[in-house]
């Protein structure tokens, strides 16, 4: 993958990051890897301290329903009457070993909740990313090529409209049109009850419905699962597609103006190839970097999308726990998402570094 110098050397860069003169990719990866830990540590600590300012989780969850004596007993049994620092270090130790506590409202280990519902969220985010790629990147190329012409104008307004539409409003509209008025797609849920029952009986179920449906091997179940995914994936995916479109457009406009694109054009390279290869490839690095940030956006959006479509994933569950004032569970889910975000940013940085040597400062 040859990334010809897209820009003249940027002096600002050198002054900003002066960690080592060059350094190999190994060093860069090591630094990036080590940076994950403070990130996770800060987020987990922040969530812990913030949540504890509201008081201990037991009083928060059961405050109105138990007498003061019973409450004190429960608080003592759970160890929430010990000094807060002791609890904090104990919590950090638990997180290190993958133990996020036990939910108060349902009395299940948070880790189990995370595993059960995490797969549903992962499935939704995956579909949404596919939609975003398929829609966002080609449209971004079109907008960049016909810059300031009609297609660009239409697409840019469209992208802003997408951005301006909250994902839950988009979801409600899609639901209204396709499920209620046209009756072509299911209203909510991840599958019909029949299919869900079949999947529950699978010996090695993954929780990712598409894989489970394929295991069953019944085309009707697969179709059922896919149909249920269409609207949530569209709602969440189009939101991200708008961001991708703008990003691809901006960066490809930058690379389309470079000398090597002019040179390729003068050699008679076809315009399509010019855009889709010469201009697009170097523009990929900032796009990949931003995709890392999109993971955070997607997870936030997933919470809302899941609520609209009753997609029983982490977000849906999170809202249920908030309603029940079960802050142990909330804390666990938020901490897990923090870990996921930190890890995905790390992976994105590695990919960016592998593609473009200039990234390894």
């Amino acid at each position, binding site marked *: 993958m040859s990334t010809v110098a897209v*820009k003249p050397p940027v*002096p*600002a860069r050198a*002054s*900003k990051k002066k960690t080592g003169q060059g350094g190999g990719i190994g060093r860069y990866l090591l630094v990036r890897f080590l*940076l994950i830990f*403070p*990130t996770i540590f*800060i*987020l987990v600590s*922040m*969530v812990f301290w913030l*949540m504890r*300012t*509201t008081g201990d989780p037991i009083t928060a969850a059961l405050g109105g329903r138990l007498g003061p004596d019973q409450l004190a007993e429960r608080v003592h049994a759970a160890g929430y009457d010990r000094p807060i620092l002791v609890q904090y270090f104990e919590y950090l130790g638990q997180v290190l070993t993958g133990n996020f506590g036990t939910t108060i409202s349902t009395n299940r280990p948070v880790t189990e909740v995370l595993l059960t519902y995490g797969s549903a969220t992962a499935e939704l985010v995956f579909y949404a990313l596919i939609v975003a790629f398929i829609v966002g990147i080609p449209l971004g190329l079109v907008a960049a090529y016909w810059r*300031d012409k009609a297609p660009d104008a239409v697409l840019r*307004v469209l992208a802003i*409209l997408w*951005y*301006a*539409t*909250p*994902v*839950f409003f988009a979801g409600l*509209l899609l*639901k*209204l049109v396709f*499920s*209620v*008025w046209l009756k072509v797609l299911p*209203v909510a849920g991840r599958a019909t009850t029949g299919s869900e029952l079949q999947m529950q009986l699978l010996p090695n179920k993954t929780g990712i419905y598409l894989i489970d449906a394929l295991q069953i091997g019944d085309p009707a179940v697969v179709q059922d699962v896919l149909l249920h995914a269409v609207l949530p994936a569209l709602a969440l995916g189009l*939101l991200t597609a708008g*961001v991708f479109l*703008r*990003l691809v457009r*901006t*960066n490809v*406009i*930058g690379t389309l103006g*470079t000398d090597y694109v002019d040179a390729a054009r003068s050699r008679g390279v076809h315009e399509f190839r010019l855009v889709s290869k010469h201009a697009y490839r*170097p*523009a990929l690095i*900032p796009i990949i*970097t*931003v995709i890392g940030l*999109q993971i*955070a956006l997607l997870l*936030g*959006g997933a919470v*809302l999308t899941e*609520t*609209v479509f009753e997609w029983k994933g982490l977000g849906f569950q*999170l809202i249920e726990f*908030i309603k029940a004032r079960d802050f142990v569970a*909330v804390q666990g889910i938020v901490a897990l*998402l*923090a870990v996921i*975000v930190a890890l995905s*940013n790390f992976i994105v940085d590695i990919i960016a570094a592998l593609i*473009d040597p200039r990234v390894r400062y």
Partner: protein
Amino acid sequence: MTEFDSASMHSPKAPLWSRLPVVHQLRQSVGLQRGMLVAGLVITGIFILTAIFAPLLAPYGYSQLRGDDGPFGAQQEPGGDHLFGTTAGGYDVLSRVIWGSQTAIIVMVIAVVLSIFAGVALGLVSGYFGGWLDRVLVVICDAVYAFPSLLLAIVMGIVLSGGQSSLFYGILAAAISITVVFIPQYFRVIRAETVRIKAEAYVESARVLGASNGRIMFRHVLRNATRTLPLIFTLNASEALLTLAGLGFIGFGIEPSSAAEWGYDLNKAISDVTSGIWWTSLFPGLAIVLVVLGVTLVGESLNDLADPRLRSRRAPGKTSAAPVAPAPVREPAGRIEPSGIYGSISAPRVRPDGLESTS
């Protein structure tokens, strides 16, 4: 604006009004970009006017359930006394949409102002003094920035509201929850600018002359570091509204008896949609879309105009009366300013990358 443009577009004695932030860009813009900017300004203007004159415009109060001739009734179709119909709870949809603009604007202003103050102060100190404080702050802000902002706002919402949902607490909790999300963005931008400006010759001269750190920071650095703020300001204002609506939608809303909030109304409309009742969700939703659209169009246009790579230029033949800049070099080689709001190839993480909404 870059020094380049202000030098070439205007003589030093340009009238004051044309040097005002938005007016200047309006004069500078052409074609589609001008259209987008004007459309954005018009929508934003209507929104602000609606918020100010909500008491006059709204036919009923936001928590009003009955008129002169008895209760409104639940889920009435649009028409007659209720232009937009009524909700399942028996509120007038039109009134709540209009009153909602007030809540929206209060939260947007509080959130953005608070985060600017906190973010700018932190960024300035961090970038100017550097050292371990700088490193710690950068790592913390990066961590917070990477976190899904809606989740952060939820956690803050739990902490701040603690179950209270009066008008004051509800709005303040929402605003502060959003503030926490935005501080890292201002921090990053101001810090990056401060680090750059710190190395400029005039800062050095000021130091040689014996100016104190405080004076250099506020007089020399801050004044020059803030020129990108209006862009982030507009982008964040729209994001603030989306976050507020998101919070309302998942149940951190402000109770209908204390204020009207579009996200809350949409949440209550989920079950309506399933039974084919469209008016309870369509109108509050459209209100959000319009306001975010208006503010974003303004921000987007300002952003493009500030970035020479993205700015459309007048066609050579169609010069207007104003002196037109000689077409700037395509790639401003010596320009240190890393990029527009989108980040660039060289410095992908310095700026908040484009529009990231929380919804």
